[in-house]
């Protein structure tokens, strides 16, 4: 089974983010890390590839920098990586991103595409479904478990508010996985050293047949307002009723 995993390189969430003063885009440092959510996708892909003697190709759109995030995923065991790095993609919205990823995936060939449900930094949570649409394959979302059915179809347990649904589709198909589905393996010392000799292709927009159109601009950025002091309810024996009324007022119950 040929598996493509969408992985995003993001600035280390443990470090403060910086915004470009003119464009208001996040300054992407040379050093980026593998988005934590995508570690789960990589692990699921590796397990399925091991079970089917398949291959795992990482697909990413980002300023490649020193490729630390990609090398983390290669060190976990993925076979190769394809990166689309084009300055004209800066500020891409989710649809442009999806077109780029779909173009790269199409180019590589695939039976299964795996993505996270939502990235840590951008978190629109819509890229994977757009990718599925562009590739013209079904999308199975919010998988908390992914397995192969007897006939080679992919079966997932889709997380729901009440429990889970079992959903199945023939390949080719796209699956989004939730964090915590599996225990992602560590990029081990050996893996990190082996990753150095794995192929990493860097492509531009032309290679994936996308002409970028920046449809969004950021007009202004305001700091998050300081949190206002909460309201204190004195308990005169009826305090609970006041709290219930307040919660109803803000429509959380």
């Amino acid at each position, binding site marked *: 089974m040929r598996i493509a995993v969408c992985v995003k390189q993001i600035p*280390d969430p443990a470090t403060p983010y910086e915004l470009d003063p003119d464009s208001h885009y996040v300054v992407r440092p040379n*050093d980026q*890390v593998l988005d934590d959510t995508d570690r789960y996708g990589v692990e699921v892909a590796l397990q399925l590839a091991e079970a089917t003697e398949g291959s795992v190709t990482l697909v990413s759109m980002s300023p490649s920098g*020193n490729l*630390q995030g990609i*090398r*983390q995923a290669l*060190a976990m065991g993925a076979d190769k990586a394809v990166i689309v790095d084009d300055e004209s993609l800066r500020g891409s919205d989710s649809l442009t991103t999806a077109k780029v990823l779909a173009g790269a995936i199409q180019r590589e060939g695939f039976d299964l595409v795996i993505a996270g449900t939502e990235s840590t930094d951008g978190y629109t949570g819509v890229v994977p479904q757009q990718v599925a649409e562009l590739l013209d394959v079904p999308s199975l979302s919010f998988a908390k478990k992914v397995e192969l059915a007897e006939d080679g179809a992919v079966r997932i347990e889709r997380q729901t508010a009440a429990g889970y649904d079992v959903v199945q589709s023939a390949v080719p198909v796209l699956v989004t996985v939730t964090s915590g589905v599996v225990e992602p393996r*560590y*990029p*081990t*010392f*050996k893996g*990190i*050293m082996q990753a150095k000799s794995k192929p990493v292709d860097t492509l531009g927009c032309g290679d994936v047949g996308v002409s970028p159109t920046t449809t969004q601009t950021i007009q202004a950025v305001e700091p998050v307002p300081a949190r206002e002091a909460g309201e204190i309810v004195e308990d005169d024996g009826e305090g609970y009723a006041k709290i219930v009324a307040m919660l109803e007022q803000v429509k959380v119950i």
Partner: protein
Amino acid sequence: MGFDRYFTDDHELIRRTARQWVAAEILPNVDEWEEAGTFPRDLYRRAAEIGILGVGYPAEYGGSPGDLFMQVVAWEEIARSGSGGLGASLGSLHIALPPILKFGTDEQKERFLPSVLSGERIAALAVTEPGGGSDVAGLSTTAVRYGDEYLVNGAKTFITSGCRADQYTVAVRTGGEGHSGISLLVIEAETPGFSRSEPLKKMGWWASDTAELFFDDCRVPRANLIGPENMGFIAIMENFQKERLQMSIVANITAELALQACLAYVTEREAFGRPLAGFQVLRHKLVDMATKVEVSREYTYRVAARMAEGEDQVTEVSMAKIFSTEASDFVTHEAVQIFGGYGYMREYLVERLYRDNRILSIGGGTTEIMKEIVAKRIL
């Protein structure tokens, strides 16, 4: 992350893995292990699987070959668990194995390295004796040759990993008085005549098993002699250089953790209606702490870089140990002060850092011994 001059992308990737591992498998349990005075043996195997345990050792013996800064990364990230004891026990192989790797025969390396580097067996170094630790040349545990065996008699104390180790690299007297009569023997835990104490009760390093070892007509095969007879002193002294670097690195991280805890605390905690961070006395104190952490770290890295180049750094690494442990003494002391009464409570990290730190200017050669070494070389 930075320090580009010392750490490459490879180092940073290993750091990230080590940090992820510490965050996922050590930090959630570390308070419990500290209170229990131990940690699961399986952690050695896990560390080996990930490639952190045997960093810096050849792949043919199951290690993860890498330069000195790869080891620095591993030491630093394990020290960031905030448990000095865990780091000490998990890291005891770094003082037990190097003499075997450097002076042992191929057969000895085959016997004593792979099972330790895979995390199955634990290795410890035993030099210090109840009668004295600083005066290594005066040690009195004897090993007398009888045919194919040495008959070992004496005792060792304060041995890290002492209760759980499967093999000990032991300094013994095979010859006359002084440094020219000392040899290194690997003694396995199941050797007849060998016994060990219960864990010694300590001020800090609680998660580490520290023991006294007893050799009572202990019969050790001659095949376990590391290097030529009576040449052990040089191997021990050489081994100390790396241990002192390791202690300096641990001191720096201990201080850094204490500083970070304080920087967070002073913005949260209020006194007299304003955050502690608003008091100039404390602000300046934090600057003193941060300055020492920064200077100490940079100097230690420089020494490491020169050691990695093969330069003689005996003077410099001794200075690093003096400086970094004085810095961490100051920083951990002041950290408890800044936390006030909470700093005295076990629930707070700075309380443990303060206790764990105290050994660093004593173990691996005391500050006074470091000064003797430097004095001899600069006077």
